[in-house]
């Protein structure tokens, strides 16, 4: 029952709305079904299956709002859920940031669902995990991996005439391969809407090569270096990331309130200012065929193709509906994912054109240090290599960095070919004067 058709979802949504006695009522159905498998030390450690559908009811009396949820669908339960939302709404204080619910909307039609992915079985998961383990058994390496897949839907309907429905699928895989003596470590990750191209063995091979290649790392002095950051060093789905942090800071209210890097001295924000290298263009597009996304935000606002940074200039910021109305701007919702425009060069091409530099597979434990400058700290991990005269010379010990994505996107040397990662399209970047502040013994 986890993935309801549009008709089945509508039947439930309409029924719930018919129980409402509130001034405004909005009902959202979220359902997903999927599973996961985890391995470590070349063995399956845990695996599980998750299947759930839930209803969220928001009821409003004037500027008072209440929310209740349930996950059973008989009339009595649904009616009680609506009543509960109404009781909570009556008890709630009036919201000074009240906005009326949205009326009918027009949405783009991304194709974010693949039958292939929705049909994953426990056997499929075990087979992919098995291929990853077998490769490491054979090479006498030690692997730890995690595969998680989801097929789901979101349906929404309110008393003002808003209707939204969409299905989606997703699979995430990541693998860390280590040499038995613990002196080499490598990593690979990938995610898919359609699992047609997923091959855990191929990804494990990449991680295994990095692990073997990183044995015997040499220490070099911390300092400012030219780096090639692979996409996994720029975005992540399990940690903060440099580009994720940058895009999270594109909130208009924080900027207008004076507490963001996009705040302007004396008040207001930096929309329209050139803050980055002119080759930097970042946008979002829920219909992009490589990273199809939900066509609506959590509050039902349509997601359109939106340019955030164009040729280094801040073009748009996202905003709540309340703040948009208050400050007289478009109420652009935050994107689900983003696309950084790039060129045609592969990571290998970027290495070839580098006289001296460092190849970074991945950055880790990334935390904010100063929100004013977006300074972040973190470390390299799972494959860091010294480049000389266009070739990888030798592995090097991991570094701690202290760097801001704003400075990074001004010190741009070259942009490679974007690839899908954590739902985004991200190119490898060559950056000069990237700041490493200390060495780490971690492998």
């Amino acid at each position, binding site marked *: 029952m986890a993935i309801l058709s549009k008709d089945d979802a509508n039947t439930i949504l309409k029924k719930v709305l018919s129980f409402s006695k509130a001034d405004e009522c909005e009902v959202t159905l979220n359902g997903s079904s999927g599973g*996961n498998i*985890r391995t*470590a*030390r*070349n*063995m399956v*450690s*845990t695996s599980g299956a998750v299947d759930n559908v839930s209803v969220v009811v928001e009821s409003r009396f004037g500027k008072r709002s209440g*929310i209740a949820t349930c*996950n059973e669908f008989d009339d009595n339960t649904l009616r009680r859920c609506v009543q509960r939302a109404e009781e*909570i709404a009556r008890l709630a*204080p009036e919201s000074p*940031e009240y906005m009326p619910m949205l009326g009918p909307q027009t949405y783009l039609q991304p194709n974010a669902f693949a039958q292939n992915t929705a049909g994953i079985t426990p056997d499929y998961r075990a087979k992919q995990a098995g291929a990853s*383990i077998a490769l490491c058994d054979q090479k006498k390496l*030690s692997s*730890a991996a*995690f595969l*998680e897949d*989801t097929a789901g839907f979101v349906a929404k309907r309110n008393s003002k005439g808003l209707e939204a429905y969409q299905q*989606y699928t997703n699979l*995430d895989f990541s*693998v*860390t391969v*280590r040499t038995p003596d*613990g002196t080499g470590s490598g990593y690979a990750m990938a995610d898919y809407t359609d699992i047609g191209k997923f091959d855990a063995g191929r990804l494990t091979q990449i991680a295994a090569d990095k692990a073997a290649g990183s044995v015997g790392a040499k220490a070099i002095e911390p300092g400012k270096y030219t780096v090639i950051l692979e996409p996994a060093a720029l975005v992540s*789905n399990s940690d*903060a990331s440099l580009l994720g942090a940058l895009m999270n800071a594109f*909130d208009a209210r*924080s900027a207008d*309130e*004076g*507490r963001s*890097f996009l*705040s302007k*001295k*004396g*008040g207001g924000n930096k929309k329209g200012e050139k*803050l980055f290298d002119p080759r930097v263009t970042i946008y979002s597009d829920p219909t992009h065929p490589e990273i199809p996304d939900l066509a609506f935000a*959590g509050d039902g606002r349509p997601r359109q193709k939106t340019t955030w940074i164009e040729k280094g200039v801040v073009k748009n910021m996202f905003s709540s509906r309340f703040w948009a109305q208050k400050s007289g701007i478009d109420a652009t919702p*935050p994107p689900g*994912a983003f696309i950084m425009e790039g060129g045609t060069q592969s990571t290998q091409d970027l290495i070839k054109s580098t006289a001296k530099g460092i190849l970074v597979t991945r950055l*880790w*434990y*990334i935390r*904010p*240090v*100063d*929100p*004013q*400058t977006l300074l972040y*700290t973190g470390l390299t*991990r799972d494959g860091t290599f010294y480049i000389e005269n266009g070739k990888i010379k030798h592995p090097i010990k*991991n570094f*701690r960095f*202290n760097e801001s994505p*704003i400075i990074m996107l001004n010190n741009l040397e070259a942009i490679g070919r974007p690839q899908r990662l*954590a739902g985004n399209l991200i190119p490898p970047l060559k950056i000069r004067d990237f700041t490493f*502040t*200390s060495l780490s*013994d971690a492998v």
Partner: protein
Amino acid sequence: MKRRDFLELSSLAAAGALLLPSFPSFGGSVVDPARLLEPVMDATVNKRLADAALNAAKSAGASYADVRIGRYLNQSLFTREKQVQNIVSTESFGAGVRVIANGTWGFAATNTVTEAGIAKAAQLAVQIAKANAKVQKEPVRLAPQKGYGEVSWKAPIQQNAFEVPIAQKVDVLLAANAKALENGASYVNSALFQVNEQKYFASTDGSYIDQDIHRIWPTFGVTVVDKQSGKFRSRQALSVPMGLGYEYLTPKAADKVMGPAGSDVVGYKNSYDMLEDAGRAAKQAKEKLTAKSVTPGKYDLVLDPHHLGLTIHESVGHPLELDRVLGYEANFAGTSFATLEWKKQGKPYGSKVVNIMADKLQPGSLGAVGYDDEGVKTKQWPLIKDGILVDYEKIRDQAHIVGQNESDGCCYAQSWQDVQFQRMPNVSLQPGKTKLSVDELVSGVDKGIYIAGNGSFSIDQQRYNFQFGGQVFYAIEKGKITGMLEDVAYQANTQEFWNSCAATCDESDYRFAGFFNDGKGQPSQSSAVSHGSSTTRFNGVNVINTARKVG
């Protein structure tokens, strides 16, 4: 759609105004606040349900089974400046069954808590165990555990926070906000998190354990913006998440601990003065705008317990989790430098002053429970003795790996629907045995920095290299606090840092730092943990200046 979460983060969190935790138990249903006061689960009913699960598991071929029937209640209040932003009450109820069949673990959970529903989950768990057994290389070996029969444990709280009317709790938050605004804050966000875990555990060893656990965390973030310069600075609350009831929010003079003379820092033990801290936070955030930017170099650091707790958590608590040490977390959180081989070498983890205990007992701590989530009675045990690593944190299926025959009782699952695994117990630095006050400690420092409150934190995947910030920083010159500093972070290596530990204050200064949301595992689970310590001195630590120029 996990991958999309990162842009759904609160922009306030991104601005550093209030670092909100990810709140795992929000997976439950949103309920009327009155529901949170409905009586705890009936142990007689639970025993019947549990027996149905255990019998079903045994009939299906399990050699061991345990069942956890759990009711997880949460309430969170959020405000900013003069308004309430959100009030959410949630309840999650269900049961998880874990089994060993053919020498392999299996787990299944259900929210159909009937004899039939729970038996079905038990059968599914056995099915999964048998399927996974086909690729298993070694059978699970559980440390023996005798059954305790029917027992119970209740957190020693004075007032259940769910019994306090919401309006009264909102008033406290708004009063704290008002104090911050009066004292110069441009913005203030505040929140109150309350948790009640009602857990019933039963196993084929013959234990039936009923537990009632409470946690509370009031917090805020204050930001001061200087429009002219465009500069802004924040200061987070110095409150501590605790395993206490609402009594934590009734300030008692005896629970206030003064920082060193000249520092304007007050720490809190078992009760918290939110209004006082909010007013002080606004003043301190304002002072940070014009405070002297630190000159990088080596300094002797004097770290307050609120700050040091996070350093202990990252550089001692995590590297000594035995599953990390063995490689089970390699693909996510990482491994550890403190391997079994490293321990055998007997190298000093820290100086002789460093005595660190693990426990699940300290009253008011987040880790305190009577029994863990696999039915082991909790205890205290040493991790580091006079600077030498003597033990790890381990559970029943790990004890044999280090040649021991009992679990440490630190197994935990964030809810009924997640499988329990090894989690960090409270890990605490023992106070100094000789009398030493904070002022006496500071008086011996020639060139140093006093840091209070935990801030930015980052550490590598084997727990060698770390960098920590803080909430407020004060220069120490010739034994005296001379003024506030800004842009301070220190970088060190775990072993060098703990070996530079010069002295720690006596037990009159001992108090907790705590964390509601320590993340581990895939899919990630959250757990709550406390770290006790007294103000402590570390010599010659590398301090960097974090100021940058952009735009």
